[in-house]
């Protein structure tokens, strides 16, 4: 699943950074909304649902691009366990980017809420109304959200490690614009 290109393609980079902003926002919106009773609660919920569904759509597009364009190889001198960790974290990210929105949608369906995106536009229910399904998905949405955030923190730490300590071109592979250490 690698390509001889040194950088991810422009659409892949665009999606990565756009989605990074969206996903980090979603995590903050999520924990912020469930901890307030002010009118901000409704505003945040009204952003959380459509933005989450947008992430689902973007993640599916991104996965397709990944199959088409693949990813640049990691530096050959990277120790095997780190390579393995990098690979596993990518699986985890794709699973979470697609799984979290589906769980959110399913959780609302199982609780008999209409999944309103905006105005009169709403999504169909994808699960039967069921307290046990709702509880399962609600807990999954909660725990996976924290796992997601933890993975992102590790991802950021890892990328900074590549850039600041190894300066091995891994950051440049995804850098939004050309940078000093542009790999050839």
């Amino acid at each position, binding site marked *: 699943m690698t390509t001889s290109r040194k950088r991810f393609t422009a659409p892949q980079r665009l999606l990565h950074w756009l989605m990074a902003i969206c996903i980090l926002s979603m995590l903050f919106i999520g924990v912020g909304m469930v901890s307030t009773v002010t009118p901000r609660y409704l505003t945040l919920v009204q952003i959380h649902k459509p933005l989450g569904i947008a992430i689902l759509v973007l993640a599916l597009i991104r996965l397709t691009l990944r199959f088409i364009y693949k990813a640049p190889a990691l530096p050959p001198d990277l120790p095997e366990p780190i390579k393995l960790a990098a690979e596993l974290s990518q699986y985890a990210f794709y699973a979470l980017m697609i799984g979290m929105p589906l769980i959110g949608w399913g959780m609302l369906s199982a609780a008999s809420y209409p999944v309103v995106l905006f105005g009169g536009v709403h999504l169909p229910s994808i699960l039967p109304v069921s*307290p046990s399904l709702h509880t399962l998905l609600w807990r999954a949405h909660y725990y996976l959200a924290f796992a997601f955030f933890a993975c992102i923190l590790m991802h950021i730490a890892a990328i900074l490690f590549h850039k600041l300590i190894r300066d*091995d071109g891994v950051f440049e592979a995804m850098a939004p614009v050309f940078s000093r250490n542009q790999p050839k």
Partner: protein
Amino acid sequence: MVQSSASPKSFRLGPVVIIAVVVGVAAIAFAYTAGWLSPHRLTPKKVVAALAPPGGPALGHRRNHAKGICFTGTFEANGDGSALSKAPVFVRGQYPVVGRFNLGTADPNAADAMVRVRGIGIRITTPDGQEWRSAMIDAPIFPVSTPQGFYELLTASASKDPDAMKKFIAAHPEFITFLGWAKSAPWTGSYAEERYNSLDSFLFVDGSGAKHPIRWSLVPAAQPVSVPPDELTKRGPDFLEQEITQRVAASPQRWSVIVTVANPGDPTADPNKAWPADRRTVEVGTLTVQQIEPERDGPCLNINFDPTVLPSGITTSDDPFPAARSAAYSRSYNSRTAEASYYPGTTTGAKQ
């Protein structure tokens, strides 16, 4: 190929500090947003915990208005609401309703005669899948003016400090108007004889986009018959549920759905303040309750009558309650559905 310009072995402190700071700041910002660093923030968790009786909440039940009975029926729109709101639910026609008659108590086994506030939850669905949910009570005003005030009322009533209520009332004189209603309003012997009020203000948005601040009420077709409270205590603990079951079995019960339009300057942000009686009202249709069903396995059990589930054409206003209610109802719903296995055991007798 780019070679590492610095081998990991030649350790430099600077980058490690940067990494630690970036990750640390992100984690702290997250914890702050989640409220973990602000113990004074009024969270849904705190509000819902404050509703619980001294022995803890009744597991598997709604955390407030815990005692109730389901119904199904219809909302028949007469078309007159369409001048105020573009919501499809006001287009002349008949739409299915799921609802719940309930008592304003956290105790699902309370005796019906002991509970002053009676309520109703309704969900109206239109063929396009949009929903209008509402939870209303028979009081003409809410006890307090703000969600924070409601939390203070709950903590004061649960407090062991003998002066707690006195202090609460000093800080929330608006509560006295509610007490006046609670002490003097006549009681009836039937859910079918109550008028139920949204109390909260919402905005109706018409076809041109103009917004109309409104409140709504269900006005019973049945003539209210006043019954002295000590007479009601002689009836069984579940007399309201038995009465409504028999009454609806004998004939469907009806309410007019009345929308009251605010004048400019009317208090829309405070459900403790009634609007003057001369405000324009529009009858938008009729609610008909056709069948009563026990809450257990009933169609209302797993529904949250969240007052912010609204069709396009109705939105929240500057009233802070619907947001607070939505946050708290969701928390209550999450807890009680997770405790579903406790539900039957705690209601033995009452609902068979």
